[in-house]
């Protein structure tokens, strides 16, 4: 009897604790909820509304039902831009994950002379504003005057025409983007710096070599950063825009027509905001599904030291 009451009391107080914790949670995130309601949800819902209209932005929107969505099926450039974007994402995301990590490992050579300067140099390209960044690369890719082809010519290779050739333009944009890897590397670096030394010491005591301690300590401890970079990389690569906007305008022959570039063109150059909004929502769904898959998969491979088990 008294035993049962004690159990009940404990359960009661556990409930109260859980309720308090939930309350604290909502209290702490309340700024974000306010922002969500004030500045974020409204425009998002509005754009969903526009996607069911024809709207030239100069006159009021006209209801159009599902027309914009149906139209996509026969829109050659919709499929082209989707295919360009998917191909680019498949090239860029893996290279960002691996390349960024390699760069971070270099940046983590604490004992090397001049490491602070080296880190800064690696990060510098990410700091340049988009236009200047792209313009420099347009020069590097210049078929005659560009440094890349000049260097290739010196070793007897006749370089491709890069941004002018539909077969190489997307690859050129990819190479260009690798120059910005320093940004991703910084996130990995922060993760690397956050790994307690004790773990390495313990691994060393177990007789682990460099490679083994990388596999058994570094990699698992970095999975939260890898998870972050993967999710963000998917979200942002699907929305790539600037490099093509400045360097190629989607050409030649639509070979670099990124999805968001096509959407931007529809909205602000072709006065079809309704269609652009529908395009945006299709992209939204694609990214959402992919992200959910990654988030779900996270429980199998992401290791959180501070997670309750």
């Amino acid at each position, binding site marked *: 009897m008294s035993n049962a009451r004690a159990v009940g009391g404990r359960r009661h107080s556990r409930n109260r604790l859980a309720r308090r914790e939930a309350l604290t949670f909502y209290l702490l*995130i309340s*700024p974000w909820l306010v922002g969500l309601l004030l500045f974020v949800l409204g425009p998002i819902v509005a754009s969903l509304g526009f996607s069911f209209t024809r709207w030239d932005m100069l006159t009021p929107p006209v209801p159009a039902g599902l027309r914009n969505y149906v139209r996509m099926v026969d829109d050659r450039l919709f499929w082209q831009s989707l295919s360009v974007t998917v191909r680019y994402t498949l090239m860029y995301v893996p290279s960002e994950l691996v390349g960024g990590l390699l760069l971070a490992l270099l940046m983590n050579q604490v004992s090397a002379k001049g490491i602070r300067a*080296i880190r800064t140099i690696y*990060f*510098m390209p990410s700091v340049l504003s988009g236009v200047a960044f792209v313009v420099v690369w347009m020069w590097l890719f210049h078929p005659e005057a560009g440094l890349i082809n000049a260097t290739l010519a010196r070793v007897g290779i006749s370089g491709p025409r890069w941004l002018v050739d539909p077969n190489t333009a997307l690859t050129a944009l990819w190479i260009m983007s690798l120059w910005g890897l320093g940004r991703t590397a910084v996130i990995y670096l922060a*993760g690397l*710096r956050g790994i307690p030394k004790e773990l390495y010491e313990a691994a060393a005591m177990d007789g682990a070599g460099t490679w083994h301690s990388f596999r058994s300590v570094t990699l698992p401890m970095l999975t939260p950063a890898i998870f972050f970079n993967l999710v963000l990389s998917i979200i942002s690569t699907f929305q790539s825009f600037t490099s093509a906007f400045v360097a190629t305008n989607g050409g030649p022959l639509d070979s670099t027509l990124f999805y968001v570039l096509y959407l931007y063109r529809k909205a602000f150059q072709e006065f079809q905001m309704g269609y652009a909004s529908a395009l945006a929502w299709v*992209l939204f769904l694609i990214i959402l599904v992919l992200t959910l898959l990654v988030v779900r998969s996270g429980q199998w491979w992401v290791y959180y030291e501070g997670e309750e088990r």
Partner: protein
Amino acid sequence: MQGGSRVRRWLILALLWGVALLFLIPFLWMLSSSLKPNYQIFEVPPRWIPNPPRWENYVEALTILPFPLYIRNTAIITLLTIAGHLLSCTVIAYAFARLRAPGRDFLFVVMLATMMLPYPVTMVPLYVLFNRLGWINTFLPLVVPAYLGIPFYIFLMRQFFLTIPRDFEDAARIDGANTLQIIGRIMLPMAMPALATVTIFTFQATWNDFLAPLIYLQRPELYTVTLGLQFFRSTYTTNWAYLMAASLVTTLPVIVVFFAAQRYFIEGITLTGVKG
């Protein structure tokens, strides 16, 4: 044995600087072009050392447009935004990382989802909203949202909080610390690398932000650096030398901040908190 490790050290150093050179080349070209007259910039074959260097490009690029004013505007926006992110995103991220509540995981996905809709289609409704509030031609639309949490930084902080063992918090809680005290005294000191990252990223992103200032700041005296840089390009011609000169100069502050903020990567968790 010792010789081997010295060779190894030299190899690593060579690799580090080799990669650094790859990252530097485009900057060297920018520097070189910024000192040329426009007609020499696209010469074939390219000439690395401008002869004679045209230093006037820097003076002219930075005086034709009021860049000191643009830098001041950008600095105000950037500093306020950084403060906002550090204040709001840390607290919100802690909640997502540590506190259990019904709906938490759903809200987390909602937060990620708000990053997935391309900006061009929410631009108009956002403008309408800020216009109603009378915020056009003020820095408010650029700054206020920073205090209400930005998903990218919340997510980033959450990931780092999740790697911190719970023991420290539990100990503090037993000592009677409340949640805010735990965040301030336990979590943040241990998340210094992450805070440094948030600072640097915010600095870089705000400094280079283009579309938002473009839409919300219409009066030239409120313009930011990126809007100013855009002025060297017109539809049919671009003043390359000025664009390069001004880009290099306006990039410097971010580079300096990165150089300085590094100590917080180097002296991260391993030196603070944990053992103390």
